[in-house]
């Protein structure tokens, strides 16, 4: 438990992905079985036991500490698990009897509810501050250390110099503590084989196209499709040896998200693997991403949610038909097979993403500019551009060059004024690199800037240095790591901010939330008074937009666990 605790502790502070990978790989390399396998399970969400409730933790600490001292401490620390971990009366030095992570997990899985408090207290007695903190995170069910399942698998893969996709391929057949996986990676054993009929295949991804690319591309070599503004998924189904039909839905990174979409899974009456987009369809009409967001990341899937946000799968590729792997076939051949499969399937919740006919790049550019007029009709609201796929390309996992291109519609652009700046992390730790910007709002007698978003990329390194210098020179106030900078009508810094969309939000003062905002240009030439008004933004809101709640499902968090193309 101590090694695992030390790892979690270090990961919790490490901002960079590479740093996290190094820490994880180092842990997996230097930790014995079965501990490391259980740790991997904890980080990939593969453990199941009854989580302890905060009230139980409160009761335990109340039995051991003075209520006033606890209240003062909790008030200072601000986090229940951390407060308890720190102020738990420690055993005499040298008497620590630290439990093994594997023992903790196996005991938790078997433990009755009534025995949990006593067992938890015994473990807490045997651990130091960091150990207690890690244990409490584990038993309350939220590691939240910024490590995705994919990252953990990538770190494991590095142990044997493998690619993470190779881990994904064998993953569905594996169970904690993954002894055969580690044996294979350390060249002590055979590659694990999977007898699972519904496994994830690593997805093929596209590159963003730039105008210069078109000159070297022949339109006849490519098929075009709409780029749907949904969630990229893989639907896999088949009959196992026992004759049962197994259906699963995976995110782009291979996370099994079947549990969140029971309404869609029911339709997987095929055998094979389909690549497509998860969308919400109401009255035969694809809804915008804002609507889809309200279905995502819900812990509990209620009948009401299912009724209001019916999940739909719009497919565009076929990786496996029955048990036949089609990935080596060219796109055109896969597409023909896909059309047959979808037709045969005849499931209302699964349909085909149409091809866009085009003769030359100009024609495709017109379709991209006006999807509604180019055949998409009312679905145009859920389209964020077009995809180009080479007709002779096989399905290649990862992001191969030159085979698939995405050509997104132009972003929205506004001019906003820098209001607050915060220092970044890692290489940017001495730079003010996270910016909150605002636009003008006028009511009866006042005109003031209201914050409308935050961005921390889009600028070059040289521009970052310039902005940083501006922030340091023009600081009005300091709040911890945040600085308020000058933002008067005549004095301040105007950013041109590009973003993909806008929606109402109750968590921002302006009532708006931007999607993927980034700084596209610095407007040193423009006085703040000439920046945009809030009305300009409000006009961009979709008509049927519903505010997203303040309960933690805002725009910036919506895609946690789900990834786009």
């Amino acid at each position, binding site marked *: 438990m101590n090694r695992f605790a030390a790892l979690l502790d270090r990961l919790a*502070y490490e901002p960079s992905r590479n*740093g996290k990978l190094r*820490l994880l790989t180092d842990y997996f390399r230097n930790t014995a079985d079965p501990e490391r396998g259980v740790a991997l399970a904890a980080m990939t969400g593969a453990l199941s036991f009854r989580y302890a409730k905060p009230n139980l933790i409160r009761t335990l600490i109340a039995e051991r500490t003075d209520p*006033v*001292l606890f209240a*003062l*401490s909790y008030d200072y620390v601000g986090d229940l698990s951390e407060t308890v971990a720190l102020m738990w009366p420690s055993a005499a030095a040298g008497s620590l009897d630290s439990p093994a992570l594997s023992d903790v997990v196996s005991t938790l899985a078997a433990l009755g509810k009534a025995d949990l408090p006593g067992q938890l207290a015994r473990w807490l007695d045997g651990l130091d501050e960091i150990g207690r903190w890690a244990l409490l995170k584990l038993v309350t069910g939220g590691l939240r250390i910024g490590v995705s399942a994919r990252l953990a698998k990538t770190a494991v893969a590095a142990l044997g110099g493998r690619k993470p996709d190779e881990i994904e391929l064998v993953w569905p057949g594996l169970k904690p503590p993954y002894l055969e996986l580690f044996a294979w990676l350390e060249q002590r054993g055979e590659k694990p084989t999977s007898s699972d009929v519904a496994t994830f295949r690593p997805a093929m991804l596209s590159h963003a196209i730039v105008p210069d690319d078109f000159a070297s591309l022949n339109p006849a070599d490519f098929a075009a499709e709409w780029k749907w503004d949904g969630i990229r998924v893989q639907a896999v189904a088949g009959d196992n040896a026992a004759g049962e039909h197994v259906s699963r839905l995976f995110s782009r990174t291979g996370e099994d998200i079947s549990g969140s979409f029971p309404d869609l899974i029911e339709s997987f009456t095929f055998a094979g693997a389909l690549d497509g987009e998860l969308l919400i369809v109401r009255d035969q009409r694809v809804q915008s991403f804002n609507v889809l967001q309200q279905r995502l990341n819900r812990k509990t899937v209620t009948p009401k949610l299912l009724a209001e946000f019916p999940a739909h799968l719009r497919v565009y590729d076929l990786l496996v038909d029955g048990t036949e792997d089609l990935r080596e076939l060219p796109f055109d051949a896969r597409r023909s097979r896909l059309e047959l499969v979808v037709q045969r399937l005849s499931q209302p919740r699964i349909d085909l993403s149409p091809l866009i006919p085009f003769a030359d790049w100009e024609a495709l550019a017109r379709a991209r500019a006006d999807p509604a007029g180019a055949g998409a009709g009312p679905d145009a609201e859920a389209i964020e551009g077009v995809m180009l796929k080479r007709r002779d390309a096989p399905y290649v996992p990862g992001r191969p060059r030159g085979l698939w291109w995405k050509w997104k519609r132009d972003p929205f652009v506004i001019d906003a004024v820098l209001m607050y700046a915060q*220092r970044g992390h890692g*290489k940017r*730790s001495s730079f003010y690199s996270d910016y909150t910007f605002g636009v003008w709002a006028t009511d009866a007698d006042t005109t003031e800037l209201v914050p409308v978003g935050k961005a921390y990329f889009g600028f070059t390194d040289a521009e970052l240095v310039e902005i940083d210098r501006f922030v340091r020179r023009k600081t009005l106030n300091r709040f911890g790591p945040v600085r308020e900078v000058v933002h008067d009508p005549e004095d301040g810094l105007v950013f041109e901010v590009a973003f993909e969309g806008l929606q109402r939000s109750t968590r921002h003062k302006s009532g708006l939330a931007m999607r993927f905002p980034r700084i596209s240009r610095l407007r040193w030439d423009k006085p703040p008074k000439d920046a945009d008004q809030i009305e300009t933004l409000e006009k961009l809101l979709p008509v049927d937009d519903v505010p997203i709640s303040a309960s933690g499902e805002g725009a910036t968090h919506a895609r946690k666990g789900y990834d786009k193309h």
Partner: protein
Amino acid sequence: MRPQDLLIPTPAGLFCPQGGFHIDPTRPVDKAVITHGHSDHARPGHGTVLATPETIDIMRLRYGDGFAGSTQAIAYGEAVEINGVGVGFHPAGHVLGSAQIAVEAEGLRIVASGDYKNVSDPTCVPFELVRCDVFITEATFGLPVFRHPAPAAEIAKCLQSVTLFPERTHLIGAYSLGKAQRVMALLREAGYRRPIYLHGALETLTRYYAARFDLGELKLVRGATKDELAGAIVLAPPSALKDVWTRRFSDPVTAFASGWMRIRARARQGGVELPLVISDHADWDGLIATVAATGASEIWVTHGAEEALVRWCELRGLEARPLHMVGYGDENESDDDAAGTAP
């Protein structure tokens, strides 16, 4: 004599009317008795200063020769009499030269402990327990959540990180008097033999320490090449961690050696990636053990989290009161640009 007549909290610091002196005055006074050299306790401009020789040296290094009208050095274990009040100096274990001050008159003894810690520190004389009637304690870490781990374990954590990230500079923020030099000594105790690099602001005091303790090979960051600094351990005052000064390092790991690092939000707020819980103040267990061991029947709590410590004393049946002293706290917990562009 009642304790509250012997020592009185005033806006200028603790004042002894009979002796006519202040302890750690926060503004210029005639007679100052100084516990230790941190800038919130030792300020320039007093008429006379009574302190240990090391504290007087440190004040001179920080403020220059004219920092006081006159000085009187006093060694640990010695006492002087000022207008019939005995003033004795005892090691406080906080930083080099730090002292607790025992003030005695008419059989009543009050110990003003200044800042103290009761754990070993290779760079200063260990804390000495002085029995007394009234014990005046700090409460910087006066909450039961503050329990400092063994410093050696924290240093091991740092060295492990150096092994794991051998190409990254490990930049450790540490207060320039005491903490920085203690970290250097701890690194040497742990077997770290490579040169340790210093921010220019640490140079003077570190040189003073290095004349007394073996701190190994020390170099200044100024003048070192970027290649040389990759993978090196660099010590800097905390304010420099966020300064443009750090841009000379390749992908640094930002560490901070402080008792505050026990609290995650504190570390994260400061952008610290490698918190090292190493403190020159007693932790909660240290405070309550010391308070109990002095045998004092009355406890006065000065700066820090007074409320919790007073509560603990009450639970133990000890009379306790907060003094609500202002002007004391962490030195160089200053604004993020205080180090400016100093090299």
